[in-house]
C-alpha cells in the first residue's frame, strides 16, 4: 500500500469559529488509479494536500493513520517530508497560470526538479528537462524550455507541470483537478497523457476532480466526497450500482446521448448526507 489514511480531519480556526473542512476521511491507495470526486467545498483538495502537508499555516490536521509507504507523516519534520515530496510523490496543481513560477523559464523549473533529487550538472539537468518535455508530447521542446510560463497556453502549461513532477521519477502522482482550468477539448488529451505516463511508469495515481464521468473512464476506483466525508467508495466499473443518494443524484443529472430526456433532474440535497 502506498497511501494509508484513516480518520483524517482538517480544521481551520479563525478568531470567531472553527470550521472542519475534512471530517473523518479514510481510504488507501496502492499502485492503482484512484479518484476522489466531489463538488467545490467538499474537501477533496484539502485531503490530497494534507498527505504532503501542503496546507496553509492555519490549518489543523489530525488523523489516526496518515502513512506513505509505511512512513508515518503525522507531525513529520520538514526533513522527513522533503525526502518524500517530489522524489517519491509528485503533485500537480490546477492552473498552470498560477502554479508555475512566473519569473523562471520552463526549462529552469523542470531542471531544478531534476537536479534536486538526482544531482548532476546544470547542463545535464537542462538536457533532461528537454527530454521530459518531449515525453509529455510538446513539439520543439528546446524552444519551449527557454520560454516563460505566461508565454505558453494552458494545455502546454499543464504538460510542463506534469514533466516537472515526473522528473524525479516518483512512485505516486497526486493530480488536483489537473484539467479544470483547461478548455474542454484539451481536457481529455491531458488526462490521457497522465494515464499513459502513470501506466508506463507503474505509478500510483490519486486524481481529484469534480467531473464524475471523466474520472470513471480513467480510474480504477472512485471515492465520492460530500461535505468533508467520503459518502461512497467503489470500483469505477460499478458506478451504476452506486448506493448513496448523492452519487445517484449526480449520475442522474448527467445528460446522455443514448437516453435523451426532456428535463434534467435537479440534485435534491438532503441535510442527512452531512452525517
Amino acid at each position, binding site marked *: 500500500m502506498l497511501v494509508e489514511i484513516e480518520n483524517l480531519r482538517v480544521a481551520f480556526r479563525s478568531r470567531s469559529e472553527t470550521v472542519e473542512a475534512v471530517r473523518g476521511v479514510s481510504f488507501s491507495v496502492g499502485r492503482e488509479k484512484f479518484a476522489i470526486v466531489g463538488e467545490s467545498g467538499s474537501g477533496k483538495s484539502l485531503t490530497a*494536500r494534507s498527505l*504532503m502537508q*501542503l496546507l496553509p*499555516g492555519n490549518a489543523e490536521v489530525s488523523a489516526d493513520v496518515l502513512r506513505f509507504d509505511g512512513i508515518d507523516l503525522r507531525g513529520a519534520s*520538514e526533513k522527513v517530508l*522533503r*525526502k*518524500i*515530496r*517530489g*522524489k517519491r510523490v*509528485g*503533485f500537480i*496543481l*490546477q*492552473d498552470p497560470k*498560477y*502554479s*508555475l*513560477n*512566473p*519569473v*523562471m523559464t520552463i526549462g529552469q523549473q523542470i531542471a*531544478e*526538479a531534476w537536479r*534536486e*533529487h538526482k544531482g548532476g550538472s546544470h547542463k545535464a539537468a537542462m538536457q533532461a528537462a528537454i527530454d521530459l518535455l518531449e515525453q509529455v508530447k510538446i513539439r520543439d521542446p528546446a524552444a519551449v524550455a527557454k520560454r*516563460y510560463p*505566461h508565454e505558453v497556453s494552458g494545455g502546454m502549461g499543464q504538460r510542463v*507541470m506534469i514533466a*516537472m*513532477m515526473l522528473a*524525479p521519477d516518483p512512485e505516486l502522482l497526486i493530480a488536483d483537478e489537473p484539467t479544470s482550468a483547461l478548455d474542454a477539448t484539451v481536457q481529455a488529451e491531458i488526462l490521457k497523457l497522465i494515464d499513459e505516463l502513470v501506466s508506463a511508469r507503474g505509478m500510483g495515481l490519486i486524481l481529484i476532480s469534480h467531473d464524475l464521468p471523466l474520472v470513471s473512464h480513467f480510474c480504477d476506483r472512485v471515492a465520492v466526497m460530500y461535505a468533508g466525508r467520503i459518502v461512497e467508495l467503489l470500483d469505477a466499473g460499478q458506478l451504476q450500482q452506486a448506493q448513496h443518494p448523492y452519487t445517484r443524484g449526480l449520475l442522474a443529472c448527467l445528460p446522455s446521448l443514448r437516453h435523451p430526456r426532456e428535463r434534467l433532474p435537479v440534485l435534491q440535497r438532503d441535510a442527512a448526507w452531512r452525517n
Partner: protein
Amino acid sequence: MPLLKRIVSTLGSLVLTLFGLSVLTFFIGRVMPTDPVLAAVGDNAPQSVVERVRAEMGLDQPLYVQFGHYINQLLHGDLGKSILTSNPVITDIARFFPATMELATAAIIIAALIGIPLGVWAAVRQRSWVDQTIRVICLAGHSLPVFVLALLSLLVFYAVLGIAPGPGRQDIIWQDMVPQVTGFLTIDSLLAGETDAFWDALAHMAQPLLILAYFSMAYITRMTRTFMLNALSGEFVITARAKGLSSRRVIWRHAFPTVAVQLVTVLALTYAGLLEGAVVTENVFAWPGIGQYLTTSLMNADMNPVIGATLLVGTVYVLLNQLADLLYRLWDPRVK
C-alpha cells in the same frame, strides 16, 4: 523597433515631467511671492541692485516671456544667486550636495541590507512574535518625526553617554585637510591615506546615518513584508514546496525574485524620502549638506536657493523613478 520607440517615449515623458517641475518652481518662485525681486535679493539690498534685478527678471513683461527667460536660465545652469553666500546657487549646490549624497547613499545601503531580510523574515513568520516585533519597529518609524529621533539621539549619545562626536561633518582639525576627489569625505580620506580623518568622518556620520537608515528601513521592511506575503500565498510556492525544495530555496529562489523588481521601485522612492529626511537631520546635526542649505536659506527668506534646491531634489527624484521604471521593464519577464 519597439525598444527605440520605448526609449523615445520614456525620454519624452521625462522631459514633460521636468518641464512641469520647472513650471511649478517658476510659479512658487516668481508668481506666488508678493514681490519676487525682494524675495530674490533680500530686504537689505541697495536700491540699485533691486532695480537691476527687477529689470533682469523682466517683471513688467507678460508671464510667458518671464517663463521663457526662466527656462533659458535653467538650461544654462543659472539658478540665480544666494543672498547669504553671495555665490551662484548652482555653485553652492555643487558644494553641498555631495555631503547629502554621502549620507543618503550610505543610509539606503544599510537600510536595504537590514530591511529586506527583516521584511522577508516577518512575512515568512507571519503572525508570530517576530512578525509583530518587526511591525512595531516599523510602525514606530512611521510615527516619529525624523527630527525628534535626531534630537533624542543627540541627547542620549552625545550629552548623556558622551560617545558620539559633536555636530558637523568632521572635527575642526581635519577641516579642509582632505583633498576633494568624490566629495564623499569617507572615500576621499581613504584615497588620501588619512585613516584618522576617515574614522573622524565616519564617527561624525554615524548618528545622522543611522537615524536616516532607520526611517528608510521602516518603509523598506514594511513594503518587503507586504510583497512577500503576497508572493508566498501564490500557488507556485506550493508547487515549489511540492517539488521537495528546502524552505530557504523556496523563499529566496522562488518567492523573492518575483518581488525583487518591485523592491527596486521602493528603493527609488526611499531615496527621495531620504533627501526629505536629510532636511531636518542636517539641521539637527549641523551637517553641511543640501538640507542645511535649504533650511538656512528658508529662515533668511532667501528664495533663489530654496527654489534651486527644490528643483534639484525634484529632478533627482524624477530621474530615480524613471530609472526604477526602466529596470523594472528590463528585468521582469512578465512585462516584456
